[in-house]
């Protein structure tokens, strides 16, 4: 499943400029310790985090994550969005909690496979 389809299915807002939405999703990873994400997330994961600091873009690039999802309608800093646009990493925002996003993601990714 592509990020754009994933975002549509979960009615998430794309806060970046639309680059990177064609990437394929291979899984979901949830964690807010960036050092942990760097060493444990997998390439192609959708990463759900409450962090909005600029460094989330660097971590996503490093691990080759599919995209970043910010839950609970948390506002993302302009500097982070700008950096994500430069690097072609999509940031999605949802009003749901990380748990609710994960449950729905499991359903739609499960339907596909």
């Amino acid at each position: 499943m592509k990020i754009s389809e994933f975002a549509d299915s979960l009615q998430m807002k794309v806060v970046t400029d639309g680059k990177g939405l064609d990437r394929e999703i291979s899984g979901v990873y949830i964690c807010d310790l960036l050092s942990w994400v760097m060493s444990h997330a997998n390439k192609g994961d959708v990463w759900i985090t409450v962090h909005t600091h600029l460094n989330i873009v660097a971590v996503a690039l490093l691990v080759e994550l599919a995209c970043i999802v910010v839950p609970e309608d948390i506002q993302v800093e302009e500097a982070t969005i700008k950096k994500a646009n430069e690097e072609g990493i999509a940031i999605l925002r949802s009003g749901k909690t990380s748990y609710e996003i994960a449950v729905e993601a499991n359903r739609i990714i499960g339907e596909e496979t």
Partner: protein
Amino acid sequence: MKAYYDLHIHSALSPCADNEMTPNNIVNMAYIKGLDVIAVTDHNVALNCEAVLKCAKNRGIVAVPGMEIETKEEVHMLCLFPGLDEVLKMQSIVNKALPKMENREDIFGQQIIMDEDDNVIGNYNQMLLTATGLSIDEVFEKAGQLGGVVIPAHIDRDSFSIISNLGIVPDYLGIKYLEVSKACLVSDFLSSNPYLSQYSFIRSSDAHNLGDLMEKESSIEVREISIRGLLDSLKK
């Protein structure tokens, strides 16, 4: 000249610190240990700084006004300021960014404000042991505007550290110094983290009880032993 320091000490105003961490006890312990410069850096508050500065002056020790701010990323930042006015201005910014929750003394401990004679002049009611709404970037911006220096605290630890929480040290904040904790040897730390060799390091105690203050072992080269002399060195 060399200044021996401990720039990360908690007073009894930090709920997690022992109540014996009074201004006089801290200063006298630093005096016994032969330290030249100390900073009392309570969690998100600076209301014991004035008493500590007065005690330190009587002992011929330099005390730097400071606080340990917890950013919204749950990263601890040592913030040191040129004067009491500046640290109290920062405290007011921090206070507005703290959640309006009362401290639970039974869980977290007391938050005691003292004067220079160690008299209790108040109990701080607001919960201090939590994250502010200020981002790391905002802490650097606000403290910088007040002439302060911001140092990411205990970066060798697995919690509340810029490296554990944010993965890497941001390169756009002009960070010069990083703090490692008392038990950490900078040379060992750098050999397992060689990418941090561009930074300078301070090593302080993060003392929550009197016995934990640094011995006379961490020093920094300063042009004079004063608040200004120390801050200038930390900005280099």
